[in-house]
């Protein structure tokens, strides 16, 4: 049947609530309204206010409250309404959620999921379009997961809820309405396994979340130019699947990392560094990055310039030193005179 990513997430929550009485869903507007993106639609109606409920409007409170509930054996799934609205909870997430198992020598695990609709591409006004995955991925103790299709959305969310550790579940909001023909429930590869979305021989694109469909379009366009492009969807940023990425790049010899988040000090830079460390002797060109711009996320009418699109990806591919032509993009940097 045809399922949207949003529908798959809703089904995953329903199935998890049915499977385990300790699972509880709460956050802002997740009850009667069903969430601003309707991901929790109908859950309160079906499972009652004890299982899916609205909270006061305070993100640190929501996350901290979930930590306390874990101490009494519950498995909270909380929603941060938007990426940038999760920042008030940042201290709870980085100082407590991420560190609790470690600082208690394993005595206290926090089997909780923090769902974060993230990234842009929906014409949202400011503070509604941040790619915040880098903050979480940089914090040891957090698993950071991001699906790019409905099947992964279902499978990864079920796995996140069952996981003994806290999971930051990043939902690319631009893909909520994307459709896929699948049967639910479904089970896809576990955390730490990337997925080759398209096979290719000349270039490997490593990407995740909202950028996966863009990368696939770019690969299609590149094929017309004569480049065979492999597209890897990371699915989980933490844990990271070095194996799949390395095997692909060693074979193709070229790599472009595509991510919507701005590039400086972010996940895309981490991927580029890992690939360089592990595949240096197989590389025919420096690892290229195509990312968001080093600016705050722009006003909606400017977001198409900001977002890494097909053209920018094709341009990066074209500069990968084909025919031993050196890429001179950065030649001026550091030059004297």
């Amino acid at each position: 049947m045809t399922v949207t990513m949003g529908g798959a997430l809703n089904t995953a929550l329903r199935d998890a609530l049915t499977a385990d009485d300790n699972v509880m869903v709460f956050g802002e507007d997740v009850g009667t309204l069903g969430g601003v993106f309707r991901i929790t639609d109908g859950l309160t109606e079906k499972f009652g206010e004890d299982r899916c409920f609205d909270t006061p409007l305070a993100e640190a409170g929501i996350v901290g409250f979930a930590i306390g509930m874990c101490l009494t054996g519950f498995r909270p799934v909380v929603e941060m309404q938007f990426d940038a609205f999760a920042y008030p909870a940042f201290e709870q997430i980085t100082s407590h959620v991420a560190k609790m198992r470690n600082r208690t020598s394993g005595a206290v695990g926090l089997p909780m999921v923090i769902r974060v609709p993230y990234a842009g591409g929906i014409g949202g006004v400011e503070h509604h379009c941040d790619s915040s995955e880098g903050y979480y991925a940089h914090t040891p103790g957090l698993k950071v997961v991001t699906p790019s299709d409905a099947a992964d959305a279902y499978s990864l969310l079920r796995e996140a809820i069952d996981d003994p550790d806290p999971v930051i579940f990043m939902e690319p909001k631009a893909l909520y309405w994307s459709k896929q023909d699948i049967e639910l429930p479904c089970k896809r590869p576990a955390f730490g396994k990337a997925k080759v979305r398209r096979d290719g021989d000349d270039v490997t694109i490593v990407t995740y979340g909202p950028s996966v469909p863009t990368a696939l379009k770019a690969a299609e366009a590149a094929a017309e130019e004569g480049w065979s492009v492999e597209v890897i969807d990371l699915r989980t940023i933490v844990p990271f699947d070095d194996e799949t990425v390395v095997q692909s790049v060693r074979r193709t010899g070229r790599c472009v990392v595509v991510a919507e988040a701005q590039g400086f000090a972010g996940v895309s830079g981490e991927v580029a560094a890992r690939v360089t460390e592990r595949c240096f002797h197989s590389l025919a060109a420096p690892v290229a990055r195509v990312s968001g711009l080093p600016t705050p996320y722009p006003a909606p009418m400017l977001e198409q310039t900001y977002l890494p699109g097909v053209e920018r990806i094709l341009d990066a591919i074209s500069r990968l030193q084909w025919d031993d032509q050196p890429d001179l993009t950065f030649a001026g940097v550091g030059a004297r005179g």
Partner: protein
Amino acid sequence: MTPYVLSLGIDLGNMPGRRDTGVMETTAETMTAALLPSPNPVQLIDPTGAEVEQSGTRRDYSMPSAARLRATWHAMVVGRRFDVQATALTKQGRLAVYPSSRGQEACQVGATLSIGSGDWLFPTYRESMALVTRGIDPIEVLSLLRGDSHCGYDPIATKTAAQCTPLSTQLVHAAGAAYGERRRGTDHVALAFIGDGATSEGDFHEALNFAAVFEAPVVFFVQNNKYAISVPLSKQTKAPSLAYKGIGYGVPSEQVDGNDPAAVLAVMDVALEHCRSGKGPFLIEAHTYRMDAHTNADDATRYRSSDEVTAWLERDPIARVEAWLRARGELNDDMVAAANAEAEARAADLRERMNLEPAVDPMSLFDNVFAQRTPQLEEARAMVRAELDAEVGE
């Protein structure tokens, strides 16, 4: 605003008419009175050890039994000796740092002894004495400050959260745990400690609000020891007293002489009864004083006078309850000597054990980041393993 007012049956826009609506007025006043603290801190025993006539408090507080006060006195004697020992160990370099609670014994010991083993305790870094009172091995309590681990005891087995350093963040955990207990159908509560400065943090307010909305049985216990490191309370708030911060969240509150162990026990009893009967959280502000500096690394002479400190010596919590017990024949020289000897023996035992180097294993760094190590952790672990093996080989 209007719907809320109407729901109380009061027309605030028609003030002259209020005299004619006595019943409604009483409802509002009763509701407000039920939330407000007493105008003055509750005190049952004054600094000289004399019993204080009760008048003007918003609730009735009764003198705890002599046996309970004697047990509290005993634990305070042991607790203070522990605290002094920990400070000494810090000076000897055995602890990285120690935030003393000397002078706050009535709060640390009184509040902790009031709860049961099934209840949760959420301590800050200043609650080492409370944790020792709770029955946790002092050497496990000091693990954090000695630096061999972040938390030396098992928070689940002891129902005692790891000592919390980021201010007031543990209060929302307490609200969640208390709500969890309520959902499990138990009558267990959470006792959450916090200092005066931390009431300015956002999480304090979110915790009170969450606990109130979800009727979570939490006793929020503010030890107002007058200073947040160096910043005095006057720069922290314009509230008449910190206990008044409860009413805005619909949380009943009380203020208590935090150097009067009898009053702390009595107010804790009322708060616990409130929580256990399903009425939600309770806020207590205990007026006390930090006799030592913030930590050994702090110089308190830069922000407070020795006269001020000396004045608080006269309000000593141990001396006053000792005087009260002696006057009633509930305590004698032999019992005092025995308690001091026990406190001394425990301090000696702690000193001896703390003088042994703790065993720390570098390889444990990679445990408990997650339940299972990720490939990235395995990589880092292999690197450190190789480094250690190379050191052995040298």
